[in-house]
């Protein structure tokens, strides 16, 4: 039981990850898919950030009398990954705007029907 609770950060990551992934796969609405994708990516950010925590450690700033610091590197990595994810989301939404202009719908099934008709 303590293993289950002690690893709670990973449970949060997995639940978020699967929620996002499910939305991407199951929802026909293109904007909801992008939201799902964003939740999926965010779960990975939490995975990185939570692994950086060192028990009893403080923020990684050199200070008198403190010897244990959290690992700052994952934070930096995720800063970059957030930029990538932001660019992906922005581009995805821009594409949805263009798709809406061209097809007059943002529902994947309707778009498919229109493509089949030529």
């Amino acid at each position, binding site marked *: 039981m303590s293993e289950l609770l002690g690893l709670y950060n990973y449970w949060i990551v997995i639940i978020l990850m699967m929620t996002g992934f499910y939305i991407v796969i199951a929802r026909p609405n293109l904007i909801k898919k992008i939201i799902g*994708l964003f939740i999926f990516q965010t779960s990975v950010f939490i995975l*990185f950030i939570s692994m950086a925590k060192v028990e009893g450690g403080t923020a990684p700033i050199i200070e008198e009398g403190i010897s244990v610091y959290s690992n700052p590197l994952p934070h930096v990595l995720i800063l970059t*990954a957030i930029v990538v994810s932001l*660019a992906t989301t922005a*581009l995805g939404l821009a594409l949805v705007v263009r798709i809406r202009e061209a097809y007059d719908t943002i529902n994947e099934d309707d778009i498919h029907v229109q493509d089949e008709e030529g």
Partner: protein
Amino acid sequence: MLLSNLPALQVVIPLASAPLCLLLRNPRHAWGCALVVSWVVLAIAIMLVRNVYTGGTISYAVGAWATPWGIEYRVDMASALMVLIIATIGAIVMPYAWRSIEHELHQKHTGLVYTCYLLCLTGLLGVVVTGDAFNLFVFLEISSLSSYVLISLGSTRRALTAAYQYLVMGTIGATFILIGIGLLYMMTGTLNMMDLSQRLPEVADTRTIRVAFAFVTVGVSIKLALFPLHIWLPNAYTFAPSVVSAFIAATATKVGVYVLLRFFFTVFDARFTFAAMHVGEILMLLAVAAILIASVVAIFEDNVKRMLAYSSVAQIGYIILGISLASTAGVSAGMIHLFNHAMIKGALFLAMGCIFLRLGSVELKDMHGLAKQMPLTMAAFVVGGLSLVGIPLTSGFISKWYLVSAALTDGYWPLAILILVSSLLALIYIWRVVEAVYFNMPGAQMHKIKEAPASMLIPTWLLIGVNLYFGINADLISGIARRGAEVLLGQALP
């Protein structure tokens, strides 16, 4: 001074010129800028290959931060081959791009295309020279994001949905890679690939590392369109602008294969990948499925670009088949085909671009009797097609020869038969095009069609020439590929 900074210049020059292209506004200036950059990149690539060939692996500390703390650029024979592929395709496609882009795209987009192209080039080159796992993810996403934009610029609205589908799948793939890298970092505390390869054996027998391996493999497989994760590819190649199809078909999936090689052989070692994780058997099965199913689907496609896209899925199958053998002969056969297929598919898609410029369509039914009007373009397509099939004196034959002999050395004779059978399948789909353009009666409007302009024909034939040259004189590429495979498998001194 300049020479010792070649690996960084390779990435920095296209990256710095991308915003310059955007600021230039005038499409012709932007194109000129992209053209010059492409050629400079090719010159650097050739120097890099020569340096690596004579002097061995180059290690470059970015910003002079010592490895493994800083980011390392590491160019060995395998990355040098990839740099050469990307730079060659870029340099040949750019002179072609002007007429094609001007014809296919709305005028307000023409300047922006070159910015995105340069960013894509930066990303692809960055992936192959970097020696840092996280940096690899960032470059992969730079190239992917810019290729989503490039694909969405296609002339029909279906380009938009194709780009959207690619964006969703590509991002899932990239996030999988990121999870894998995170788990690796969790266990080893390092991101440098060489450092990872030294520290991983200690912890290799843990579930975390196995999960990391699985995430990376699946993520990269989406990026390189390994069957059955290829569903983004046919639409993306079909509806993208012609130049973009040629550039992306020849480079993006190949870079995916390179990333797979890097992780399989450098980060995890071959023993872990193939003996402990049994990836060889799985990959072989998927490669065989890709070769057979995608070739058969290609036979029934009426849109020639779509036919070539499915053929790409099959050809990626060949490359993966070579890698799945996990022998020096197999991996070098895969790398030879990596190079040859890039040149073949690049040339075929360029020929399709010439046809689209004059005909406005790449449907088989519109192409009846086209060979009389566009003899040079169609001749290029036929030679490229024969190379795809693997007729002797073309480079496609060389790849298949090495693949078959690698399969036979390991005693997989059914694979050798499969390669021959699938070559016949390729012959059938190429023949369908040949039949339509050479032996069918032309339509009423056909006499108005002219041959493609020289600025597009010359690059197409240049790539065909590369094909024929390496079909007759294969020593150079097979030598580079063999040494690349030896470096990857750890048999050569670093």
